[in-house]
Every structure is written in C-alpha cells, then in structure tokens.
C-alpha cells in the first residue's frame, strides 16, 4: 500500500512540476506544411494574393512559395523553433480585397513530417474599383471603328490608377494565330481613349470639362496560341477618390471589331481586362451589339 501511495505521489509531483513543454504533443523533428490556396474571386476580378504567416509566428516558421498546381505555399521550421505546429494560419491581402486570415485547422502529419491543407475561401472586395457599365457605341466616322464606353467607379477614398489594359479574343471555332507556333496574329491594332471624369462626389451627371484624349502605346501580343490571342500594354490613367470615370475606347485595327461573319464563323468572343494599381484585374466581355451614342 505504501508503494502504491508513493507511486501516486511521485506521479502527482512530476505532473505538477514538469515544464509545459515536457508534455507538449509536438515533436522537434523536421516538418513541412503545404497549403494550397483556392480563392473564389467575385465575377471578373482576379489578383495575386500577398501571403503572410500569422501562426506559427514568423521566426518560429517561415513561409515560402511552394511547387505545384495553383497557389501553393509551404511553411517550414524557422530558426527560433522547430516545434511541429498543430495548425497554420495565413493572412492574404492585396489592393482592393479584404484582408483575411485563413486557418488550416488541426494538421495531420505523416511519418515523414509532411502535412497538407487545402484552403478554399471566397474573396471579399474592399472598396475595389468597379466597371459599372460597358456599352458598344455606333461610330459615325468613316471607316467606322469599334467604340466602347466604359464607366468606372472608384468607391475608395484614395486615388487609384488604371495601370494595365488587356484585350483578349478567343476563337472557339478556329485558330487565332496565323501560323502555329510563329506567334503572328491575324490582327494588329491600337487603342485610342477619350476620357470624361466626373468631378462631383459619385454624381451621375457627366461634366463636359476635364476631358482627356489618350492613345495607348506599347501594346504587344502577350499571348497567342491556339484559339486565344491577347494584346496588352500599360494604360496609366488615374481615377480620383469617390469619382466616376467615363472612358471611350476606340480600337483601330481588328481586335475590337468582330464582324457578324466572324462571330458566326468562328464563334469568337472577346473581353477586355483592366488592372488597377498594378494588382487587381477586372475583366468584362466586350458587347457585340452597338447602342446609339448619347
């Protein structure tokens, strides 16, 4: 009986006096956590996510870009600690989207010390610029050029910059490039921009002043393979805080102008993509049918 009491007392003393780490479940063996990020963007929006390690704290672990399909990051032991974490929290952020902290939940490590987690999460916009309307106008000039009017809104309290423009045409029923592998497209074009900026606070009225005329230069074929051809180039046009911006884009050349014949024959579609502040991209299909200009 005395031996039994002694053992119980010894267990009690050890449990009460041992340092917390002595009973931690984590081992100090090497480990690696792969996290696959699967963001679900609102329709038309796309951006690269800035990733930041929240847990384990930086120093205890490091975040590195991982290999694999999609947006993969790897969390590795840091210099200060090699303790295997029970979970990993990663913050994602960028211009125009709400900062989110994503948690993997409890991780399960295999015998090699590897753990994987897939994080699927919706992206919430945060004062992101919008394209409120995009309309194809009838151009009365000869020869007629494709003319589009696009209404931007900057709901944020800071000036933003339309930094990049990309035009993409996809031929669902034929090739986009002249010769396979030669990267020579059917089309070449340039873009002329006529801007009208609404100076008032989110006013619906269009002032006639403060108009600009702008020609996009430096467009190049970013991608031309198979059925897809993409032109892109720097755009660099500011939108002041809480302002609307009306831009008219006139395409000189073939990319904007899909004839009725082409539409039917190639079932071609085209869309336009703007990048804001060199990060947040917003794409919309260019309409085929023209409206009367106001």
């Amino acid at each position: 009986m005395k031996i039994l009491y002694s053992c119980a007392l010894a267990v009690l003393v050890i449990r009460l006096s041992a340092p917390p780490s002595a009973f931690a479940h984590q081992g100090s063996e090497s480990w690696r956590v792969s996290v696959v990020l699967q963001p679900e963007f609102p329709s038309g929006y796309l951006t690269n996510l800035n990733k930041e390690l929240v847990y384990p704290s930086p120093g205890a672990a490091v975040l590195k870009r991982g290999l694999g399909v999609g947006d993969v990051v790897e969390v590795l032991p840091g210099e200060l600690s090699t303790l295997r974490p029970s979970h990993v929290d990663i913050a994602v952020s960028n211009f125009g989207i709400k900062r989110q902290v994503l948690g993997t939940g409890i991780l399960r490590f295999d015998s090699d010390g590897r753990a994987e987690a897939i994080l699927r999460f919706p992206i919430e916009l945060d004062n992101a610029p919008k394209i409120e309307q995009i309309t194809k106008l009838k151009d009365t000039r000869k020869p007629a050029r494709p003319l589009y009017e696009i209404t931007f809104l900057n709901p944020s309290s800071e000036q933003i910059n339309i930094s990049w423009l990309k035009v993409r045409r996809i031929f669902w029923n034929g090739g986009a490039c002249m010769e396979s592998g030669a990267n020579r497209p059917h089309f070449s074009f340039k873009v002329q921009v006529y801007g009208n900026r609404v100076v008032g606070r989110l006013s619906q009225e269009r002032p006639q002043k403060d108009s600009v005329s702008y020609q996009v230069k430096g467009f190049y074929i970013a991608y031309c393979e198979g059925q897809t051809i993409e032109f892109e180039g720097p755009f660099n046009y500011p939108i002041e805080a809480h302002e609307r911006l009306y831009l008219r884009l006139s395409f000189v050349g073939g990319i904007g102008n899909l004839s009725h014949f082409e539409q039917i024959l190639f079932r071609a579609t085209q869309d336009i993509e703007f990048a804001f502040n060199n990060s947040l991209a917003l794409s919309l299909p260019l309409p085929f049918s023209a409206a009367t200009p106001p």
Partner: protein
Amino acid sequence: MLPRGISTLYASYLAKDENECEVRKARKTNFLSAIVAVFAGITSIATFVNQLTPTFTGLVDFRVRNILSLAFLASIMGLCVYIMSSRHLCKSAFIGQEIGHFNYSRTRRIVAFYSSVLALAAIAVALSDFRYWFGVDGPIQGRVIDVSGHPVAAAVVDAMNRDDRSVCQSPQRTVSNGGFVLDLEPTRGHAAYFTVKATKCELRQPITTPMLNFVSRKDNPNENSILLRLSCPGD
C-alpha cells in the same frame, strides 16, 4: 481519535445535571455548536462560491483551495457527527442503573445534523473539482459565431482552468471564418471555461462536455469541433 480529543479539550467545561450526570456547561456547548454551525455554513458557502464563481481565483492555487475546502468540510463533518452521536453513561438516581445520555441537547443535535447535510453537499461539490486537477494533451479546434450565426473573426479565444489561468500554450485569434485551434497544456489543469473576447462583447462559457471528446489524437481522427456562440453581434 477526534471525539476523544475534543472530549479532553472540553473536559474542564463539564457540569453535573439533576441526575448527577456530567454534561457540557450550557454556555460552552452553545458556543461549540454555534461555531460548528457557522464554520459549516461559511465553508460550505465558500465551496459553492468557489465552484460557481471566480471569486477566490488568484488567492491560492485551485488545487490548494480544493484541499483546504475538503479538509475544513471533513473537520466540520467530524464535529457534526460527534455532536450528534456522542453519548455518555450515567447512573440514574431513580432506577439505579447506568443509562446512556446524549452529550448535547436535541436542539444542538438538530443544528449539527443540518450542518452536516450542508457540509456533505459541499464535500460532494468539492470532490467534483478534482476533475479539473489534470488537463488533457493535444489540440482542439472550434468556431466562434455571433447571434446571427456569422463567424466572428479576430476574437481572442482561450481555455481557462479554475484559477482563471490559461491551460493553453497561448490564446489564439479566430481566423476569418471564426475558426480557432488551441494547443492544450495538460500540466496547467483541466479547462473549466472557454473565454472569447471580441471587440464588442465577451463570452465565458463553462465546458459541459468532457474535453477528451474534442482533443485531437493520432489514434482519434474523428475529433469533434467546439461551437462557441457569442450572445451579441460580432465585430
């Protein structure tokens, strides 16, 4: 041993009744009964308060409080039993035989009985505190939602022992979907409460389900998840 010690202690307060039997002097026995009743009440109430509120946290370790409480209550129980059951033999002047007398009057024995019932209930409560002595090992996970069911992000979640001290390696902030993972530290005792501190409100929720149900272990991949509901809108 205890009744004999007390009997010796109070031997100087003996008096003789009308049957020439030795009984306790009324003033002294009243005092003893009152002390027993008051101690029983105070200790029991303290035990209940200790169980229900964090009033005594920070004074001494909850394990020490537990032991002290049980020791007091056990002493009170002993005294109560002694008062209720102690007798002495006395030769009756009328029948010429020795008959048994209770040492204490009926009223005092009734008081001692009720005191013992209270002390017994308090002992049961104090014994239940033993479940908080030793914690469990491993991570637990859960989510925090507000009254409308929306996840509460950036709230600080912790699990506390009976001393209002964390039983986790560190408190955790909930992620955007309200999720959290806590790494339990078994040496700090068993979790008694979850605490959630959001910007607009706080939650202190007793743990009603055994913590082992939630702890993730290698051989138990089907761990449960905790759902903590804030009773006010989240951030």
